[in-house]
């Protein structure tokens, strides 16, 4: 009996003495209690949850040295190693996770569209459902502030910069010939179909040291990492047809997309101002192959397109008009690998090759140019902690340009250049707290053509002023070698450069975004020449200079009005330059002072339709009137355009889409062409430069065939 009692006592006491209590309080850095935090000993079942006072208490039978962990949403996990017997009355402070959603973002100068970024100004779908964009991602970006409306061109003109000052990258690798060629009065389009991309970052200044050879802006397009399923997309449009197919396997997938556009039938029904001999025709094909590895992703992207057209253009100096014929072939290949090397190291490597060929007949001239470009990049990222990340990388850019020229005086003359650039960059992201962050970097480049070494520092700071708002400052210096139209004639030059100074305020709450950004850009070493057009006889120098300053506003509200999503952009730009053939400092004709854009979308549930509109206003552009004195001394009237679109879901997989550009039929004027010689009264006659057609109609039917019978091409429209 006694023995039994003793055994019993030993047993129970053993049972009891094995239990220890661990308790304490969990607070944030402002000493406020955190409710619902998970506190536990790692690798055991022992733990508890904090109450409304941030207190926790739990029993454990573990002894000796253990790891105590405290985890809570949006905070960094706390870890403490020690003897269990000392884990009493603990006070644990959790630091906020700088990766959390409400943390400060390094975003001065940048607009992002995608599912992954923290501040999305545009959604991927916007590219294709914006009325004026017609499925062109460049068209959608033109509704953002910082861009100027150059209606007859269609490329991106950013903050007083020329179109060449914006560089486009696919998966981090440069695209050398991003636009399809067009005639004078017809805007160009981006070459690449939007449906292969799911992330777009558009930076209008102050961008990362990773990107160079761009004075004004970079546009980063990322291809889709993993498609959802096998499917076939068929599109029949008033302008042509598209066919796409995606195949998905265990760890890899392939998407191919082909399209054919021919404007001949459209021009028959709606005659344009151009006299076509051979209407615009283009055939293109794209493919993306993706392969997943255990800790990395390989992407191969290839695109080919061929365009041709022939027409007689109006010309004030040629009563018969001038003959213009173009054939363009373009091949682009891009391969990249992104992967983890260890928990803290990751690597990115990529390579692109571009081959472009243009054969151009203009009156009696024949120009045949060929361009071959290579871009290779290798980048490493080291994550020391959530608060400190370091990037280092190197890249190589090579361009080989050759042109042949002949006319009735000159037999085929050949000329060209090779432009090779080596660059290295280093950059760090430093988060001092959830409220204050820095990004600082340095880029150095060596140009073999100019035997010139450049150093470009970049810096940006962001500070969170309240829960929903932040203030950012950015500075950067940018270098870019002159374009091929200059380098093909003269290579004894230097890189052009600019400095950006940016002040940005951003308010971001519950699907409402407001941004205001003021900037100043200082241009130096711009190329000047002493003839009307850059040519063999021109004398070139780097004495050009200029400035651009302004303020951009953006407001988007997807919340306040039911089923309505709208955004408004306004940009004010003040810029002057003395470059090219300018006799003095002047406002260039591609840079107008005021640009306003308004985009709205309305989803009508009962009709299963989305209707949208976009309105653009642009103040007048400068031109030179030789009948009065001065250079770029007059301005055209302002530009107005209202576009409407309508997408109707016939069934889950069939969509009917229609759009009308310039519904109200504004007679827009892009500029004037003056006669080379004065008329009998001593005046120079002029011709108004108008778009090929004031209005444009588009109708399409899109059909998706897939296993699940659900997906459609709404996101492609």
């Amino acid at each position, binding site marked *: 009996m006694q023995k039994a009692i003793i055994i019993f006592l030993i047993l129970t006491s053993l049972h009891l003495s094995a239990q220890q209590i661990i308790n304490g309080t969990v607070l944030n850095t402002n000493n406020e209690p955190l409710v619902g935090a998970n506190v536990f000993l790692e690798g055991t079942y022992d733990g508890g949850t904090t109450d409304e006072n941030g207190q926790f208490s739990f029993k454990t039978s573990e002894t000796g040295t253990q790891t105590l962990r405290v985890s809570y949403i949006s905070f960094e996990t706390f870890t403490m190693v020690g003897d269990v017997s000392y884990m009493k009355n603990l006070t644990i402070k959790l630091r906020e996770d700088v990766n959390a959603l409400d943390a400060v973002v390094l975003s001065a100068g940048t607009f992002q569209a995608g599912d992954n970024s923290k501040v999305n100004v545009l959604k991927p779908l916007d590219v294709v459902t914006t009325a004026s964009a017609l499925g062109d991602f460049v068209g959608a970006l033109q509704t953002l502030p910082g861009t100027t409306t150059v209606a007859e061109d269609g490329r991106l003109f950013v903050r007083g910069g020329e179109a060449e000052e914006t560089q486009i990258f696919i998966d981090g690798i440069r695209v050398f010939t991003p636009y399809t060629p067009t005639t004078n009065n017809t805007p160009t389009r981006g070459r690449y179909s939007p449906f292969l991309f799911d992330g777009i970052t558009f930076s209008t200044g102050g961008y990362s040291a990773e990107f160079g050879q761009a004075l004004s802006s970079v546009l980063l397009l990322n291809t889709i990492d993993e498609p959802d399923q096998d499917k076939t997309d068929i599109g029949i449009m008033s302008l042509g047809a598209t066919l796409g197919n995606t195949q998905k396997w265990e760890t890899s997938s392939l998407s191919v997309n082909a399209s054919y556009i021919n404007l001949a039938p459209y021009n028959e029904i709606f005659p344009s101002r151009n006299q076509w001999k051979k209407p615009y025709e283009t055939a293109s094909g794209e493919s993306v192959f993706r392969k997943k590895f255990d800790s990395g992703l390989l992407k191969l992207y290839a695109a080919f397109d061929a365009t041709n057209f022939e027409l007689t253009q109006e010309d004030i100096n040629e009563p018969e008009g001038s003959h213009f014929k173009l054939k363009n072939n373009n091949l682009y290949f891009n391969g990249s690998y992104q992967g983890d090397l260890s928990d803290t190291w990751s690597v990115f490597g990529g390579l692109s090759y571009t081959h472009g060929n243009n054969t151009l007949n203009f009156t009696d001239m024949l120009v045949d140019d060929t361009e071959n470009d290579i871009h290779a990049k290798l980048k490493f990222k080291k994550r020391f902690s959530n608060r400190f990340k370091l990037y280092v990388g190197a890249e190589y850019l090579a361009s080989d340009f050759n042109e042949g020229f002949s006319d009735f005086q000159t037999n085929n003359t050949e000329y060209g250049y090779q432009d090779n650039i080596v660059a290295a960059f280093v950059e760090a992201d430093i988060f001092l707290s959830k409220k204050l962050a820095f990004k600082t970097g340095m880029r150095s480049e060596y140009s073999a053509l100019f035997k010139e070494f450049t150093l470009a520092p970049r810096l940006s700071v962001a500070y969170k002023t309240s829960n929903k708002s932040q203030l950012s400052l950015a500075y950067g210096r940018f270098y870019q070698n002159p374009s091929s139209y200059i380098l093909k004639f003269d290579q004894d030059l230097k890189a052009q450069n600019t400095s950006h100074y940016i002040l940005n305020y951003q308010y971001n709450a519950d699907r409402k975004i407001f941004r205001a950004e003021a900037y100043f850009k200082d241009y130096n070493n711009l190329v000047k020449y002493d003839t009307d057009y850059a040519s063999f006889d021109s004398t070139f120098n780097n004495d050009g200079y200029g400035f651009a300053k302004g303020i951009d506003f953006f407001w988007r509200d997807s919340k306040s009005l039911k089923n309505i999503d709208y955004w408004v952009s306004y940009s004010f730009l003040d810029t002057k330059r003395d470059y090219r053939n300018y006799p003095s400092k002047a406002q260039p004709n591609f840079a107008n002072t005021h640009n306003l854009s308004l985009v709205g979308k309305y989803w009508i549930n009962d009709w299963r339709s989305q209707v949208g509109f976009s309105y653009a206003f642009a103040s007048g552009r400068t031109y030179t009137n030789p009948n009065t004195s001065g250079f770029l001394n007059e301005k055209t009237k302002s530009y107005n355009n209202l576009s409407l679109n309508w997408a109707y879901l016939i069934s889950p997989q069939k969509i009917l889409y229609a759009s009308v550009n310039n519904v109200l039929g504004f007679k827009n004027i892009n500029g004037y062409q003056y006669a080379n010689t004065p008329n009998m009264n001593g005046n120079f006659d002029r011709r108004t430069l108008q778009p090929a057609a004031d209005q444009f109609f588009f109708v399409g039917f899109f059909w998706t065939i897939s296993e*699940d019978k659900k997906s459609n091409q709404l996101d492609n429209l």
Partner: protein
Amino acid sequence: MQKLAIILVTLVTGLITAQTNYEKGMQKAFELWGNNNSVEASNMFERIANAEPDNWLPPYYAAQINIVNSFGEKDEDKLTAQLKKAQDLINDATAISKNNPEILVLQALLYTAWVAFDGATYGPALSAKVASIYAQAEQIAPNNPRVVYCKAEWGIGGAKYFGQDIAPFCSELERALDLFANFKPETPFSPNWGEDRTRMLLEACRK
């Protein structure tokens, strides 16, 4: 003496046949969840997940709690944080058990939570994903009642929107109900939910 002996025997046998920590922990977590204490339940599942790195069930249930709580959540920040956490847990579970139809269903529900929150924004991008996940799950486990009923529920949502007939989905629900009747979970804690909701949906069908 006899009593004492009984006590002793019970104590000792209690110690021997005592439930494993895993069973106790899981039971406790389900109890907390049943008592509407979902934060503590989720924390408990997470702790078990931490202690049992080779078992996909604890992270699965922790994820399920966060997803279920997200339906009806109006605060976008909170929703985002919750679903991000759920996604991390699903990733953990998937790393332990690949091509698991139960986890695939949960992934589809996570995307559905986004679509339910804001159909106009997330519908177009995520609908295709949800559909393809159900297709994949069906291929692996055509007779799993949760795969059948969740896929049918998703189908009903789409069909109603396009004014199409929901009858084929209702007959799928009938089939799911039969499958539930014969469903035997692999372990006492393996997923076995969804029968009540299937009945509820069927009732709506019959109206």
